[in-house]
């Protein structure tokens, strides 16, 4: 429509650049970045074949992604590596350190290009009569570059300008995703660690909604709050407990297990640390009654049968029978043996 003065791009071309830049920053993972970039840049610089090359030694990533499937890729890659030293664009970037958009036709005549082994073994088969490349980054350990191939020498100066305009944004988007990936990895590690210690975590947002929850934490709550939907909202009893003394855990027994909910100290947000204590199976397969658990508790505390009888308000003979059954169920020889197991069994 309009080209203001000697502007290298029309207003519409500038809008294309802005649309491409917007798409670049929409990518949400490092893994998706190569395909995402090729799709975002394709409308800007149409080509018969485009490629995203990435070497990230720290992350152990060596990626060569094309916008379409290419036959006998392994052979092409092998030939490319064998002859890459004569690639005019690779040589240019290596010698000058300049990563701006550059094309083979800037550096070599058609005839000179056709003489190269890399043309004869790689590019001729791909129909690449000209190539324009953009080096996003080239420092120790990380190289990121884009390459566009065409059947004719018809890359325009405005296409070169467009690629150079998106270059800093490609670099920024990559750096942002790298940072995000680092945090995501650490978060996954911490989740694994927490699960290993037998805990789940639920964090509440400012409106009592669930900001994030570790898998299993909500399921654990669901076992103790039948009818509630802990994935959607934290049970009201726990929200109520959050307003009380922070050092006393919230507990609830159901079946053979006991839910223990704690609040970590020094948390900026309201955090709920969930764990479950299950009465472990006894070797004899038997289960202890609640009364036997009471007796075991006092026995482990070093109380005599007479003392336990007084504490629990039972006859001395009843306590004695409880202790005998305990010893039999636990498969131990004496009351000291029973006390040794108490720590594993008592909630």
């Amino acid at each position: 429509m309009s080209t203001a003065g000697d502007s290298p791009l029309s207003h519409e071309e500038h809008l294309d650049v802005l649309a491409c830049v917007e798409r670049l920053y929409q990518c949400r993972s490092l893994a998706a970045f190569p395909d995402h970039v090729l799709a975002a840049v394709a409308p800007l610089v149409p080509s018969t074949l485009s490629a995203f090359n990435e070497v990230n030694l720290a992350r152990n990533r060596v990626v060569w992604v094309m916008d379409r499937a290419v036959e006998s890729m392994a052979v092409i890659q092998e030939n490319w590596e064998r002859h890459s030293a004569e690639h005019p664009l690779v040589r240019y970037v290596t010698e000058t350190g300049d990563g701006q958009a550059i094309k083979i036709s800037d550096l070599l005549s058609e005839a000179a290009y056709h003489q190269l082994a890399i043309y004869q073994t790689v590019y001729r088969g791909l129909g690449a009569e000209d190539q324009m490349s953009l080096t996003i980054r080239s420092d120790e350990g990380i190289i990121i570059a884009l390459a566009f191939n065409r059947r004719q020498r018809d890359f325009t100066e405005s296409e070169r300008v467009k690629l150079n305009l998106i270059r800093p944004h490609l670099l920024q988007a990559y750096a942002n995703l790298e940072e995000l990936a680092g945090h995501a990895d650490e978060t996954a590690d911490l989740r694994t660690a927490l699960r290993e210690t037998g805990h789940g975590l639920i964090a509440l947002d400012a409106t009592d909604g669930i900001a994030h929850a570790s898998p299993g934490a909500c399921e654990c709550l669901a076992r103790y709050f039948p009818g509630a939907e802990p994935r959607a909202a934290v049970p009201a009893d726990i929200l109520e407990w959050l307003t009380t003394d922070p050092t006393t855990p919230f507990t609830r027994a159901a079946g053979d297990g006991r839910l223990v909910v704690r609040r970590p100290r020094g948390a900026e947000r309201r955090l709920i640390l969930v764990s479950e204590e299950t009465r472990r199976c006894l070797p004899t397969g038997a289960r202890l009654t609640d009364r036997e658990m009471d007796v075991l508790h006092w026995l482990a505390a070093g109380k005599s049968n007479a003392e336990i009888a007084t504490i629990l308000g039972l006859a001395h003979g009843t306590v004695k029978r409880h202790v005998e059954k305990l010893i039999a169920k636990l498969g131990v020889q004496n009351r000291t043996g029973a006390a040794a197991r108490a720590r594993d069994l008592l909630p």
Partner: protein
Amino acid sequence: MSPPLTHEEHLEVLACIHELHRCRSLAAFPEHVIRALAPLIPSNLSAFNEVNMPRGRILATMSRHFPNLADMAVVWERHSGEHPLLRYIVETGDGQAVKVSDFMSEAEWRGLHLYRNFYRELDAEDQMSVTIRSDAGVVLALAFNRPERSFTERERVKLNLVRPHVLQAYANAEELSGHLDQKQDLETALRETGWGMIALDAAGRMATATPGAPECLARYFPDADPEGPLPAALADWLATDPRTPFTLHGTESTLIVRSPRRSERPLVLLSEERRRRLAGADRLTPREIEVLRWLAEGKSNPEIATILGVSAGTVKLHVQSILAKLGVENRTAAATAAREHGLVATSLRSP
């Protein structure tokens, strides 16, 4: 019909977008966005208004500092129903750039209570605003004020061009902050369980650790490089028998190391069990500690005698001495006390 921008103006827009995406956290976003937009739309006062209910953020950030911001907010809210730009967005839902001078004459603007009680003092003779987002829980808007009616159509075009990018940058900053918050929450939770964590990278070097974990490791392996590989003993254990916890006894405490079964990267969890001093325990002889350990395992005196190769009478004397030194009434209490105080941290294997 809006005028097309020059190449140089497009470069300014692109530079502004680049600056927006360099923001590294939601906390820094308001000041960052104000700074990024300043070269594009010069003004004597600009503001970024943010309401994010889930995150509990209600913020009005200005390009200048006002000590009496709270009082100002009260005045603004009292008269905000008169605000022509606010009324426009509420009525139409259109978030594109609009200015006060689009809707009313200078005289009409100056007739508003909102102007007389609020904007006059700020020299705001015209205001251009753009609403980035406006849905149930989140409202984001930018406002620029000038002492004269001088906003141009080109400036309106620029503001509309960066609008989707401000939204994208906010979403990205929110996502990054979400990860950072989660990381912090999980670290706090893990600390509460008494465990620390060290993650290894592809080359087996200690890459990331929770606060305190490297220091804990250093107490048992003083020569370990905190950014190098795991100490040899731990590396061997991890390679051969990671399912059985690794323990190492120090002078007053024991290091316990575990490795989670299902993890994407190799991880080690560290915990330290401090052997609390039991009253009288330091006066126990090595033989008495040995007897106490078997006693705590539930062994009878004759069994302990057989295990230790001494007479039953000797064991009985040892037990009596242990009870006296610990100040407890019977062997069960001695076993429980010993266990609770970590005096018998190591589990013995029956012969």
